[in-house]
């Protein structure tokens, strides 16, 4: 019997070569192999059974880190060696949570590799690492960004070029960050572009939540008494909050007063929202930026297709899609697949 090895190695290496050529060390075998190891590791990284999703930024000079606000903690600096890349992930990934990411400074000149963790979160509304580096769209600022975008798909990019490595053998991919932005636009329908900071904050919080959890199901409805009641008639088992968590208000309160009390209040309620999102069941949002309730179950008789493939969460998602009162619904499954529907 003959067997054939099917590998994406050559495509990945070609992609890396194209990106590395714009940095100061093209054709460096050690760096290419080291980055391959990082891609493979973070596609499905676990620590003590907990999945981790560290963002990784690779620069060729410490000057790069002057171009945006960040706090860095160096973990090690050693001579360049392939093994250092995977060691860095092992040592830093458990630290790269709550706004921290992993950085590498790889110097072709002195053949050294430095790594550690960094955060761009100087204040509660600060733009995250991805937005501050890739979002600026400045080609002269050479760096690579590597991150898990869900379902064992790893994004590798610089400002101009990007490729995705899908280690799940799927030919379908729904970008989670783009989908979350669409979801947030609907949750904050009453906010225009002048409230960008509010939307950016909620998107950042949701992204972190999706990374941490085992699957999520979100529904958005119009903030209207009749609509809310109609929705609740089709849901059961959950908690409808007497005082919805008004994230819009908490964010604008912090922006106006800018005190430690407002900052802590915003963080506390955001953490509460994250916990609700990671709790089983449906989390219900209004389109005015409020969390209305959590842990709901939808009546599955609303799913009309008998041949639906998938578990309870998928069936619940499809049921929500069929409800007239739902403006949008979002689902992330345990294995990382993302679905989104809006009307």
């Amino acid at each position, binding site marked *: 019997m003959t067997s054939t090895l099917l590998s994406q190695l050559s495509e990945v290496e070609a992609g890396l070569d194209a990106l590395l050529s714009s940095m100061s060390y093209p054709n460096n075998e050690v760096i290419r192999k080291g980055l391959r190891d990082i891609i493979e590791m973070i596609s499905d990284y676990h620590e003590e059974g907990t999945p981790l999703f560290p963002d990784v930024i690779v620069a060729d000079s410490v*000057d790069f880190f*002057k*171009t*945006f*606000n*960040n*706090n860095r903690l160096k973990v090690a600096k050693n001579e360049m060696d392939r093994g250092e890349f995977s060691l860095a992930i092992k040592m830093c990934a458990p630290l790269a949570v709550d706004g921290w990411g992993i950085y590498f400074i790889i110097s072709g000149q002195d053949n050294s590799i430095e790594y550690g963790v960094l955060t*761009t979160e*100087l*204040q509660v*509304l*600060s*733009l995250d690492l991805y*937005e*501050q580096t890739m*979002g*600026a*769209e*400045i080609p*002269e*600022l050479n760096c690579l960004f590597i991150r898990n975008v869900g379902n064992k798909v790893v994004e590798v990019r610089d400002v101009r070029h990007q490729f995705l490595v899908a280690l799940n053998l799927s030919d379908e991919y729904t970008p989670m960050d783009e989908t979350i932005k669409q979801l947030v636009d609907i949750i904050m329908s009453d906010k225009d*572009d*002048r409230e*960008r*900071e509010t939307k*950016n*904050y909620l998107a950042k919080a949701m992204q972190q939540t999706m990374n941490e959890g085992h699957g999520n199901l979100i529904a958005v409805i119009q903030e209207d008494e009749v609509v809310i009641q109609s929705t609740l008639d089709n849901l059961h088992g959950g908690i409808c909050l007497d005082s919805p968590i008004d994230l819009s208000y908490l964010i604008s309160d912090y*922006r106006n007063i800018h005190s430690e009390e407002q900052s802590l209040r915003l963080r506390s309620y955001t953490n509460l929202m994250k916990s609700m999102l990671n709790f089983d069941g449906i989390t219900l949002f209004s389109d005015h930026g409020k969390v209305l309730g959590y842990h709901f179950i939808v009546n599955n008789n609303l799913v009309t297709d008998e041949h639906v493939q998938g578990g309870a969460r998928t069936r619940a998602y499809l049921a929500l899609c069929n409800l007239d009162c739902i403006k949008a619904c979002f689902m992330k499954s345990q294995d990382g697949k993302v679905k989104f529907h809006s009307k």
Partner: protein
Amino acid sequence: MSTNVILWQNPEKDVMPTDLETVPDVIAYANEQYLSSKQQNQIVNAFNQKSYDMSAEFAWKKAIIKLRKSLEKLGVDFIAELLGRSDISEYTPIDEFLTDRKAIDLAEQLGIIGKTGALKLKHNYELINHFLTGESDEDLSKKDAFNIIYDSVQYILSEQNEDVALAFSDFRNRLLSDTISLQDVDAQQILVAPLFYIRTVCIIMLNAIKKDKGVRQEHALANLNTLIKDMWKSLAESDRYAIGLAYSTVSAHGDDLASKGLKQALMKVHGFDYVPETTRSTTFKNQAKKVIDTHYAYNNYYNEPAAVRSLEKLGSIIPAPAFQDCVDAYLCVYLGNLYGRSIEAYPIAEKELLKISVDRWHYFFKDIIHQDQYALDHIYTENQIRNFSELLKNVGYTSDSGLPKDNQNLYNAIINGDSEKAKRIALILYNRLKYAE
């Protein structure tokens, strides 16, 4: 602004005769809109009854009220921008935040008053402050009172030229409502203007980027990106840090559009050295501004100790973006004004100034002082220059030959105690900030 008005040319003005000898003769030149017949009579009567302080102070107060009204026409938010006060809204009464001294500075900056008039009014202000706060052991003399009344009428209470201020206000509106190209006449004028005008344009754009949203913010970002390469070489260190700090602030506040626009602008001038690592410098800058405002306000000797202690409490490790503001604040208190300094406050300032290393003093004299209006404003009296010289010697900064020419001459004059030369050079550098040569 595309008129024949050139912003930084001294305003031409009908000058009162220089041989007027009596207060009634002087008062006759006051515009009745600003000083009614009844008020004119009150000033004359008080002067004739030898109540010189009452007469002078009344004339002064009316003059300052008129000056504030002129500035208010430009818009409170514009005035707040020029003062660097983000806490002021369009509804804040102007007399709550615009001190007498600041009003004179702004009027000079905007061309409402020329440089001679500004100089005289600033001296009169210090005189009034000195006598009003009871620091003096004499009464205000007839001669001093007459001069105060004369200058108040000459430069404020008679007719004023507000064309320049209005033209500048129009340009400000254009910056935030149009996208300007480098070939634009207004842009070309600004790029060759003295530092004060370039700085003001920068402040206008940065404030809109930080506070506004939508079209105004977009125009401000686009115009900053257009102008920054040509503006950059003319900007002082403090102005460059202001851009870096604005970038830091908008990123910390989650404004992705502003962050991207400012980052692109900084990229054009390789200006990332001016981006602070944290926003801690904002706290230092704000407190330093309060010290300077207190120094230039009434009763400053009494109020300075509390203000300078609050700055001292923030610590001696001054973040780079706030370095100039803090040094300015401490120098203002330590060097004092024409009549002396606060006995309680100046030792606190001195203690902090002595902690600044020789390297940082070298940086101050090399890159900052020639464009530092506050430092230059305090190199004037013999006492101020002698105290400055003593301070530098106590720090150990006793010789330096690696400075640009004018800065070197100024440094040498201060260290050698040559007060006349130091004063002369400081004045030349100060005028260069505001006026074309």
